[in-house]
C-alpha cells in the first residue's frame, strides 16, 4: 500500500535521516531506498525530496557533496552530520513515545503482529 499524506510529510525528515544514517546516498538512491525499506509503503514525492534535502542541509543535519558514482557519473551524495544524528535520536525517541501513546489509544492495535 502506497500513501503520501501530511502524516508522511511530517515524518519524512526523520525517515531521510534514518536512511542516511546507514550510509551516504544521492537523491535517486534515497527515493529508491525509502520505498524499498518501507516495503513500498512510504513514497516520498520527487517534488518533495529535493526541497527536503536542501532544507535538511540548511539546518546542517545533512551534508551534500558532488562525487563520482559507481557508474562514473557525478552525483550529489548526502550524508548525515553529527548534528543530524542527534536530531535523529531525538526524533526517534519522540516517535517511540508517540507510537506508545497511539498504542494505548488504539488498544495495541498499532503493534505489528
Amino acid at each position, binding site marked *: 500500500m502506497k500513501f503520501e499524506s501530511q502524516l508522511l510529510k511530517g515524518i519524512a525528515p526523520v525517515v531521510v535521516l534514518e536512511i542516511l544514517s546507514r550510509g551516504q546516498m544521492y537523491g535517486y*538512491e534515497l527515493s529508491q531506498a525509502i520505498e524499498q525499506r518501507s516495503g513500498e509503503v512510504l513514497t516520498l514525492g*520527487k517534488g518533495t525530496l529535493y*526541497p527536503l534535502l536542501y532544507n535538511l*542541509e*540548511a539546518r546542517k543535519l545533512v551534508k551534500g557533496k558532488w562525487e563520482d558514482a559507481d557508474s562514473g*557519473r*557525478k*552525483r*550529489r551524495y548526502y550524508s548525515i552530520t553529527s548534528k543530524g544524528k542527534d536530531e535523529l535520536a531525538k526524533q526517534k525517541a519522540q516517535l517511540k513515545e508517540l507510537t506508545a501513546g497511539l498504542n494505548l489509544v488504539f488498544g495495541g492495535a498499532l503493534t505489528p503482529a
Partner: protein
Amino acid sequence: MAKEHKKIESQNLPACAVEFIKLVIKKMRYRRKVRQDVQAELAAHFEDELKSCAIDQEKEQKAQQLIAEFGDLELLAVLLRRAKKRCRPLWRTVVVRTLQTIGILILCFIVYTVWFLTGKPAIRVDYLALFNQMSRPQVRNEDNAWPYYEKAINLYIEPVKGGVVEEFIFYRDRRGKLEEVFRFTDLSEDEQAQILEWIQNNQKHWDNLSAEQQAVIFKCFRYNSVPVFKGTLAPLYTTFGSMTRHIIEAVKQNGPVTEPGYNTVVPVVTGFPDAPFTEWVKENKVPPNFFEAVSVAVLHEWMKRYNNLPKTARIALSNPEYEYLSPWIRKNEAAWRQFKAGSSKSYCYREYECDPNNEKKNLWEIVLPNFSRIKDLARLGIWHCRINLREGKTHQALEDCVALARAGSHWQGKGTIIEQLVGLAISALAHEQIMNILATTDIPTTDLKQIQQQLSEVYQQGYPLMNMEGERLAFLNIVQNVFTDGGPGGGHLIPQRWNWLMDNENDFEMWKDLRLLTPLSTAVSIIHARRDETVSKANEFYNRCAKNAKITPYEKHIGKLGSADKMLFSLPEYRYFLLHYFMPALDRASEIVYRAKVTHESTVTILALKQYRLEKNEYPANLNELVTAGYLKELPMDSFSNKPLVYKRTDDDFILYSFSYNFTDDGGEPGKNRDGRVAKWRDNGDTIFWPVQKENE
C-alpha cells in the same frame, strides 16, 4: 562542473525531461551557480530513473511519468528556491541584505534628488513694488531730486581711461597714494645731476622735432602712453610710468638709453592719436633719434607733473593737476549744475523698474548699477570744489561741499544698505572737504555762518539711522527666487537657482566652479536650511539689526543689546550659507551712521567755533558758551560716550574730539593705524576733528 552537467543533460535525457528541468531552473530565479547545481542534480535523477529503459519511446514515457511525480513545476521551483536560500551562509545573507538596503537607499536618494532638481520657485510677492512703495515720499513731485540726477548722469563725461586725469584723481582720492608717487626729488643729488645732464645732452633731438610732432607726442602723454618705434611696421606704445622708470634706470647706470623690452598695443581709447604715428612708419618719416627725443620729453613731463604734487590730499591742487583737471571739470559743468540743482531738492525718489520677463533679477542688481554714476558725480563735485578753491572761489567751493552733503543725505535712511552706505560716503567726502578748507583757508564770518546754517538744515528731521527694511525685502526676494514654496520642510533650496544667483556675482568665481559640480551643489542644497527656517533666521537677524541701529556704539559697548553680526556668525555656514553670503555686517554698517552723525555735528560745531573766534577774538571756554551765545542750537553729542564731544581751548586754537572705539577719553591723543599713522575711528585713541590731522603724521 556546469559545462559537464549541461553535457549530461543534453546527451542522455529525452526532450520532455530537458524542457522540464530547464523550466524548473528558470523559474527558480536564484543565483546561477546554485541553479546549475540543482539542474545537475535533477538531470542525474532523471538519468538514473531512465537508465533501465531500453528504447527512446520507453524513456519518453518514463520521463513523462517522472515529471508527473515531481508535481507542479512552479511549486517545485519555489520550494527549491526557498530551500536553497536557507542553505545560504550567514555572511552571504548579510551582504545581500546590505546591498539591498544600499540599493533602496540609492533609489530613494535618486527619487529625492529628482524631486529636488525639479523644484520651482513660486513668485507670489512683487518685492520690487514693495521696495518702491517703501521709499516713495508723500510730497510734491517738483521736490524730487532724481530727474536732475538722471540728467547729470546723462551729461557726465568720464575722464580718459588710464589717462592723466584719472591718474591724478586716483592719487588724491586714495589715501596715502600721493606719497607713493615717484618724483624727481626722490632721487639722490648725484642721480638728479645725471638725469639733468642726460637731458641736456639729448635736448637737441627733441628740439629737432617740428612743433606739430611735439604736439602729437604730448597728446599721447595725456593718455599716459609713449610711442616707441622698434623697426616694426606699426608703432608700439609703452605706459608713461614704466617708460619713465626705464629711462631713469638706464641713465643712472650710465648705460645707453634704448627702447624698453616690453611694449603694449594701441590703447583702445577714443581720441587716442595713433594715426600720425602709423603714418610716420608707413611713409618712413620717423624722426631720427626719435627714442632719445621722446625720452627727453618724457623726463620733462615727469618732472613737470609730479615735482610739485603735494604729499597730502588736503593741500591745494598743484599747477599740473589744475592744468589737466580743469578742462575735464569745464566739460562737466552742465552735469555738475544738474547734480547741484538736484541736491537742493528735499528728497530723491526713483521708481525702480525691471523687465517683467526677467523674473530672476534681484533687487540689488536693479538698484546698484545706477550707483557707480552717482559716485562718479560725487567725485566730480569734490574736484569741482578743489578747482574752485584753486581759483580762489572759496565760497563756491564750500557750496559745492554743501551740495554734496545734501546729495549724500538723499540716500540715507532708506533703500538698501549699499545705497545708504554710498549716501554716507558722499556725505563724508563733503564734510572732509569742508574741514580741509577750514584748515587751509581763512573764511569770512558770513560764509561760515551761511555754510553752517546750510549744513545744519541738511538733516532737519534728525540724523537718519540705518534702515534695514530695504535690505530685508531684497533678501526675501532672493529667498522667493531660490527656494521652492511649501512642501516638506517648508520649501527647499533649488540648486540651479542659487547657482544662477552666484553666477551673477562676478567677484565670486568659486561659485562658478561649484556650478559645474551639480551633484555637489545639489548636496549643498539638501543640507541647507529649508525656506521657513531661513526666513525665520533672516527676520530674527534683521529685527536684531533694526534694534541695534537705534542704539549708539557706546550703548552697544556697555552691553545694552547683543551683536547681530555675532548672531549671524554663530549660524553654521553649511546650513545658512545664503545668509552668510548675502547679509553684510549690518551692525558695523549701523556704526558707520553714528560715525557720520558725530562727524556732521563736529563740522557744524567747528564752523560755529570759527565764527565765534572771528567775532569775539577768542574761542569759547566751553561748548555751552557757544550754545548760550546762539552760535549752536545744541551741544554736539559723541555716540561713543553718550556725552558731548570733548572740547578744549588751547593757546590760540582748540581741540575737538570723540572717544572713538575704545570708549575712553585719551586726552586728545589720536588713534593710529597699523602703520603708526594717525587715523580716525580706531580703538587705540581718540578721533580728532580739530585740529585737522595730516594723513602722514
